[in-house]
């Protein structure tokens, strides 16, 4: 009976058919799925590079690939994962899909620009892929000068142009979100009734809009300098290579928060629903997102403690880096406080949320180790740093992304994923992740430098553990890829509100109709007010 009505209901997936209806769509939900397809491709491509890196590091001598190839592998892994997967991951897929649904409007403010951003992203991605096929690039994802401008013999300009272009996709997405969140909230949906996911998307958008232009112009200067043999960052002409690092990290440090803030938003949603409680200290969690966005712009110098920066500047950057840990800690404490006396259920999204909270805490605390000047000098450019940022980006962002994908999958597709397999994969991902990256903290502390393709024998045991973990992790990522696709056809039909959540996105059908809501909702309650659901049933 229910099945029959669901099948016939008009939704954004069956409203129109054909390739053209997808490639020319202005529906934010379909554009979210277009992004999903693209970034899934880039994720597995970046994963292949990581696999070869881990295989090379299984044995101490550089035997599987040459040093030059190894340089290209870690560069492409970084470039693809950072610029083509992590930056767009949550905002462009789940964000695109959810922002209008969560604030109760029909679409983003600028649907055409939204579609344009996908094409720009694809053009940028195509440039990077073309550079890869031509022979790749070996500068590291950071493109440090003067190596990138004067010495590298690889496709620096082409890759740079790809990043430059895809940056504009990120800017346009952020711009669209800011305008939409400001101007298009449903009647009664005040700022402090917004879901925390929206607050975190707002903070993320601020960084995208204000940070991305700086990396764009920096990469442009590198490309111009390399192409026309100018001397903007070239020390031979009085240019300053450290200035490049300042400009680069002015974006690339806040970019870390572009990656992790949306994840934090997802965790707030999931923790609340699966404890049946309001998020503890809603306003603190909301403002901590904005605080992270603002403070995140003031800490870039901690990437340059050993790059001839004055010791006083380093002191200030060190202090500010500790300071940014405060709003991050507020979030972790408040999620934990939300769990207290909640009626917790252990569905898959919640398992990922637990994973996030634990791994983000480890990643964040080791971040404060690195903000400590003396300690940082010891571990700069070692695997300790590699482990730290993978705990944030993979343990944090990717766990949250997978949690969010499971949580909203019923809304996006109208199908449930298989719970048993999903729980298993969450466990496999968690174990595989820790096995991969925890040994890297130890070997980094013991002095294993990053970006080396050969190493002394005493580090081998850690590398073997890490590679073993990476293969477990790969299985953990393949399982969801398989069952998500499987569920599109064979999954149970999802009800409109499978988690009994109170957000507006759950009050429309699964999958939603093209216009999102048949009647524009009017909001009279705060976010995460689960008593309202009981009233609705009675009413």
């Amino acid at each position, binding site marked *: 009976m229910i099945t029959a009505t669901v099948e016939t209901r008009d939704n954004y997936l069956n409203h129109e058919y054909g390739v053209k209806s997808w490639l020319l769509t202005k529906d934010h939900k379909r554009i979210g799925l277009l992004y999903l397809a693209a970034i899934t491709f880039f994720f597995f491509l970046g994963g292949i590079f990581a696999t070869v890196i881990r295989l090379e590091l299984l044995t101490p001598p550089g035997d599987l690939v040459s040093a030059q190839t190894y340089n290209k592998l870690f560069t492409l892994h970084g470039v693809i994962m950072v610029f083509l997967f992590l930056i767009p991951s949550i905002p462009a897929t789940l964000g695109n899909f959810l922002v209008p649904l969560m604030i109760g409007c029909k679409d983003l*403010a600028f649907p055409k620009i939204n579609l344009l951003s996908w094409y720009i992203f694809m053009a940028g991605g195509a440039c990077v892929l073309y550079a890869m096929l031509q022979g790749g690039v070996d500068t590291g994802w950071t493109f440090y000068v003067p190596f990138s401008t004067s010495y590298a013999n690889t496709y620096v300009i082409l890759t740079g142009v790809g990043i430059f272009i895809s940056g504009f996709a990120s800017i346009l997405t952020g711009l669209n979100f800011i305008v939409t969140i400001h101007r298009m909230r449903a009647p009664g949906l005040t700022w402090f009734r917004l879901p925390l996911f929206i607050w975190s998307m707002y903070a993320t958008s601020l960084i995208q809009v204000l940070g991305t232009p700086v990396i764009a112009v920096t990469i442009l200067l590198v490309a111009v300098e390399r192409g026309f043999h100018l001397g903007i960052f070239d020390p031979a002409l009085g240019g*300053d290579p450290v200035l490049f690092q300042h400009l680069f990290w002015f974006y690339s440090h806040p970019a870390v928060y572009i990656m992790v803030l949306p994840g934090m938003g997802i965790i707030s949603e999931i923790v609340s629903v699966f404890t049946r409680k309001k998020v503890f200290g809603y306003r603190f969690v909301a403002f901590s997102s904005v605080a992270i966005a603002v403070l995140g712009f003031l800490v870039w110098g901690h990437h340059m403690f050993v790059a001839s920066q004055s010791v006083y500047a380093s002191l200030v950057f060190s202090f500010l880096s500790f300071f940014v840990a405060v709003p991050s800690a507020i979030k972790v404490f408040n999620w934990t406080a939300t769990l207290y006396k909640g009626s917790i259920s252990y569905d898959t999204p919640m398992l990922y949320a637990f994973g996030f909270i634990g791994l983000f805490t480890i990643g964040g605390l080791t971040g404060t180790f690195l903000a400590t000047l003396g300690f940082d000098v010891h571990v700069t450019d070692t695997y300790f740093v590699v482990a730290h940022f993978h705990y944030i980006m993979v343990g944090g962002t990717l766990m949250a992304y997978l949690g969010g994908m499971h949580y909203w999958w019923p809304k996006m597709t109208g199908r449930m994923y298989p719970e048993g397999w999903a729980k298993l994969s969450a466990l496999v991902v968690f174990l595989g992740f820790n096995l991969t990256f925890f040994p890297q903290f130890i070997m980094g502390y013991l002095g294993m430098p990053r970006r080396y393709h050969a190493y002394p024998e005493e580090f081998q045991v850690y590398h073997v553990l890490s590679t073993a973990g990476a293969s477990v992790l790969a299985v953990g990522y393949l399982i969801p890829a398989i069952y998500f696709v499987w569920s599109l056809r064979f999954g149970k039909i999802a009800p409109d509100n499978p988690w009994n959540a109170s957000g507006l996105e759950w009050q429309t059908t699964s999958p939603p109709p093209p216009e999102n809501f048949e009647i524009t909702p009017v909001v009279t309650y705060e976010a995460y007010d689960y008593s309202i659901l009981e009233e609705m049933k009675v009413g």
Partner: protein
Amino acid sequence: MANHSLALRHQFDDVEQQKDASTFGMWIFLATEVLFFGGMFCCYTVYRSAYPAAFGHASNHLDLILGAVSTAVLIFSSFTMACAVNSASTGARNALVAFLGITILFAAAFLVIEMSEWRMLYKEGLMPGFNFTYKEFDPGHVQLFFCMYFAMTGLHASHVTIGIGILAIMAFRAWRGAFGPDYFTPIEISGLYWHFVDLVWIFLFPLYYLIARHLQG
């Protein structure tokens, strides 16, 4: 087609919200532009404070007259752009098309003047990467000055060129009767963009042409 733009797009509740969102979106875009140019202004500031003497010498190789004339031309185009927005709001179609046309002409004039300045610098051997033969005072840092000069004025010129394209489309749509007193948001936000482009030049002109004049005598 002409009436299409009058219609309320489906995602908005009313015309007011639609207009509001478009204008707000443009302001945010301009914020990204400020940071886009900001990166380069930051480089300029760092290098100028590091090598004031070389930057002073280099600055005096630029043609003050050409710079001043192009500044005046650009300011005047901002004025005609403001007139265009005003004409749009009163529904004066012919005046709108005319003012947009004049703005485009002045923008083109600006580019012509700038190109002649670049040509002159090329001939004098002051264009790094193409023809740089300067050997007098601290040639390395003078070259740095000209690298920054061409990078920043080049980026600005590309914005002027894009602006001409946008204004041409607007003039065409205005000529077709797409705008009226109740709907001229595209004209208004194109105007915002154009004023921004002018404003960037208002900073570039003193930083490159004026700041070292006192060293000449």
